[in-house]
């Protein structure tokens, strides 16, 4: 009981301070244009941004753009992660392939995906496909590398045991490879989801296919500072939501795993 109440108190303190920090941040933001340190034309008042945010949330056009962005994000992430899981499993399980692909992967992986934007535009024009090329390229490596590490991490004793018990290839995949690689895969997916969102919005800003990124670019060129700030806040909230959702999925699917169980005991 005593442990529980200290933990509760700590949680209360943390939450109060966190809210205080958030309020403090918003107050400072409000004060800067009010005191004239930065012109409200460049840094609008928080209140104006909040009002605009609420107005946007009631606007169907906004939701449609949000839908565009999230569609590109979801399709890109799905293509990248399924390709990465399939290829990563094969490459990770076959030592020959792992050695043969190492230098190529290490060369391709650091290529900034935005470098492919011009190419994607030439190939697909101002459409979602162009954005997908970039999203897939960027998020593929996140999952691929994690899957290779994960598959290679199989415990030697467990593998030999499975072999000597005569487990079929399929059973080995199901009971040996999957549980070992799953934590790595979940990490990769979480990273890939964040990267895919960044690239989805970036692509819309630079290429100009419809979505939140294009709205941001339009409000910038129209000099609509309030709208610009409101949309940036939206993208931040979106990023935060994706983080939280993927952390939740990670905890649920790995509830049996030591790393999650260990945290709960403490």
């Amino acid at each position: 009981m005593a442990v529980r109440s200290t933990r509760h108190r700590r949680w209360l303190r943390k939450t109060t301070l966190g809210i205080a920090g958030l309020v403090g941040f918003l107050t400072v933001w409000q004060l800067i244009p009010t005191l004239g340190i930065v012109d409200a034309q460049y840094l609008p008042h928080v209140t104006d941004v909040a009002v605009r945010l609420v107005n946007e949330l009631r606007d169907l056009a906004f939701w449609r753009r949000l839908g565009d962005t999230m569609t590109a994000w979801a399709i890109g992430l799905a293509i990248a992660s399924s390709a990465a899981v399939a290829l990563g499993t094969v490459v990770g399980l076959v030592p020959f392939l792992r050695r043969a692909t190492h230098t190529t992967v290490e060369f391709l992986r650091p290529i900034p995906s935005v470098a492919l934007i011009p190419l994607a535009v030439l190939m697909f024009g101002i459409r979602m496909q162009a954005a997908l090329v970039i999203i897939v390229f960027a998020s593929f490596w996140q999952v691929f590398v994690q899957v290779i590490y994960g598959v290679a991490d199989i415990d030697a004793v467990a593998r030999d045991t499975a072999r000597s018990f005569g487990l079929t290839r399929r059973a080995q995949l199901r009971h040996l490879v999957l549980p070992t690689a799953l934590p790595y895969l979940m990490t990769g997916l979480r990273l890939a989801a964040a990267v895919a969102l960044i690239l989805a919005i970036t692509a819309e800003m630079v290429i100009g296919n419809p979505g939140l990124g294009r709205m941001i670019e339009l409000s910038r060129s129209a000099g609509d500072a309030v709208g610009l700030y409101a949309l940036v806040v939206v993208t931040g909230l979106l990023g935060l939501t994706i983080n939280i959702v993927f952390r939740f999925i990670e905890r649920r699917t790995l509830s049996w795993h030591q790393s999650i169980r260990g945290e709960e005991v403490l």
Partner: protein
Amino acid sequence: MTTQATTVGRPSRARGVLHRITASFLFATGLPVILVAAWAAYSTYSANRFFPGPLTVLDAFVDTWVGPAFLEDVVPSLLRLAGGILVSIVVGVVAGTVIGLVHWLRDLTEPVLEFFRAIPPPVLIPIVMLLLGITDTMKLVVIVSGAIWPILLNTIEGVRSTDSVMIETARAFGITRAERLWFLVLPAASPRIMTGVRQALSVALILMVISEMFASSSGLGYRIAYFQRNYLIAQMWSGVLLLGLIGVFLATVFGIVERRVLRWYHGIKEVDRG
């Protein structure tokens, strides 16, 4: 891994060594050579003008980037990139150490920092442009505004998870605050800090390119966008190639630095495993 295991305890003969070197050389270069050959074959037989052959791209690479263009477009971009990364590392590590050490400060700032990290960095470009105009400082600030978060948050996390027994021992032995920071807290946090720096490098490179595509009349990003708009396909590919090389270069330099900084850490892990 396997090659090491089989040679342990056996006197390595010169022929075996030579054989092994040849094998790893073939493994390292085999696939890249095959891929480039496939690319060359494809571009020779297909009429797709968006995929010029490797030789054409190489020609364009030499024509476009070797010479004055290197000084005008590439060097300023790289300097901004290096400056942005440096500022992010210094500010991120210093601020992260302070926040990580002070309990209430961490609780106070955590939600705000988490929010800033969740903002996709490129959307900060229009805001920084609005606040600072289109200047060199703006491009630097753009890079820092995106690259600082992974370093800052990882430093906080790393500092926070320093072994408390070690801190108390150090205190009990009367080790001064500055020494404790330098010899205990920072080394303990360094694996996390390096993870943050690695993430920051790729964000910084992306932001460098995009900020130049958006608001510039020079620089690597601007050049590539310009080539694309004018259908200079081979030149555009050469730009993509150059960006790729910069990315690989950054990753290699980081790998070398990381191996030096974290040599003790990898050593401990090696012992743990063995």
